[in-house]
């Protein structure tokens, strides 16, 4: 039993230090759009509700077997429940942190998602949340960063995801009964040239599968001690 424990540790450590040839995201989208009633790219009031809809363009890692470009299916996601804590200006930069948040990813065999202007409306988010829920999770540490100095009005957004459900949750497991954490990340633009009326940001982003999780450097002696 003790040997099995040591063996498990060795296997985990050996696996953890392998650097994959291509470290692609598990979900990549193009595009996603944000909206938040009452907000501007440089101002979000405390309590503001940020929502996001997007269409998935590619899958990787444990979700590689899903084909996001098959005409018969579409993969979409919806983020809701992000509550603004208010924008903090660091002129010319503006950082807005959000609490809470839920992300849901759907597989739909009746492709119909459409970014109609001025959400919420008859098609947004409804056409992004039909079909089968394949992954859902809780978000945390979500924030947006904007500014008034970039020529093309660009910034970024990022948050953490803890997977909690969906038909494919087993595929994002960490091998020891839990799930691997994930990061929602990417660039933002509020350039009117690429924005749809009624939305706050266009987002080009992805979800990174944070497995293996970081390791603490150790010695064989310390590892053996753990199982003695």
């Amino acid at each position, binding site marked *: 039993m003790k040997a099995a424990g040591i063996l498990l540790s060795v296997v985990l450590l050996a696996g953890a230090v392998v650097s994959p*040839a291509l470290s692609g995201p598990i979900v990549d989208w193009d595009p996603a759009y944000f909206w938040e009633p009452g907000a501007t790219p440089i101002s979000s009031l405390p309590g503001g509700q940020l929502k996001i809809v997007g269409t998935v363009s590619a899958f990787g890692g444990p979700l590689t077997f899903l084909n996001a470009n098959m005409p018969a299916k579409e993969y979409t996601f919806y983020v809701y429940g992000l509550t603004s804590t208010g924008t903090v200006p660091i002129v010319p930069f503006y950082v807005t942190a959000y609490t809470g948040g839920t992300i849901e990813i759907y597989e739909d065999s009746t492709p119909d998602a459409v970014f109609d202007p001025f959400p919420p409306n008859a098609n947004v988010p409804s056409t992004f949340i039909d079909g089968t829920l394949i992954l859902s999770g809780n978000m945390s540490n979500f924030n947006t960063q904007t500014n008034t100095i970039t020529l093309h009005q660009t910034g970024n957004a*990022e948050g953490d995801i803890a997977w909690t459900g969906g038909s494919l949750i087993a595929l994002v497991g960490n091998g020891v009964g839990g799930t691997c954490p994930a990061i929602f990340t990417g660039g933002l633009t509020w350039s009117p040239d690429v924005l749809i009326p009624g939305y706050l940001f266009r987002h080009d982003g992805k979800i990174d599968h944070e497995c293996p999780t970081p390791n603490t450097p150790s010695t064989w002696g310390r590892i053996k001690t753990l199982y003695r």
Partner: protein
Amino acid sequence: MNRLATRAVFVLFLACAVSVPAARAQSLLFDYVGFDYEDPNLNPAMFGAVGDGYRGLGEVGSLFGPLTSDQTNFQYTYYFDGLTATARTTIGPFIIIDYTNTGTLTIYEDSRSTGTAADYGTNPPSALAPATFVDGTAILVGNLTNFQYIFNTSTNTGSFEADFEAVGGTQIGNFPLNQRKGWTFAGTSGNSVTVPTGYAHQVDGQTFLNPPTLNRTGTWGGIKARYR
């Protein structure tokens, strides 16, 4: 003589400059995901130190018209090259890095069956990177100007943007002469465990093409008549 000179100036002006920007939306040209690093890296403790070279490489998951692609049989990769940090400004936790020289963003097409699969490896430049990202056929070469990188050292995330102009590659002929300019942007993050050792950040970006500049058709007679 004076009148003749005036006419000549007007004719020249009309021939060259009657192009007016169209009010049509910009179109997505390609979407890319990868990692960035610095080479030369004059100050490894400081990202974007003046004199540092910025480089990025990765996969191009989606390409759109006028580019043509075949993701089934070819792998598409990108490479940022030729950018040197010329100014670094700190505002609170933010740093603004400007690259005033012209860089390039090149897309390569490499056979999945007979080519070399892209491999990030570690600690670029290495035998693997950028070599495995710049093999194959350069289908599009674009010049990058006004490249600016903004990074929040507190959140460890940021973004960059630049003006883009298609200037070469085997598919340059697909681009009408009046539609070769656009811009690119990306979100960047140093928070993911998927960032291979030796790279600075993950990158998720897009490049847009401006709408074609429109020309008014006319005859020499019509132009002459205007100035008689």
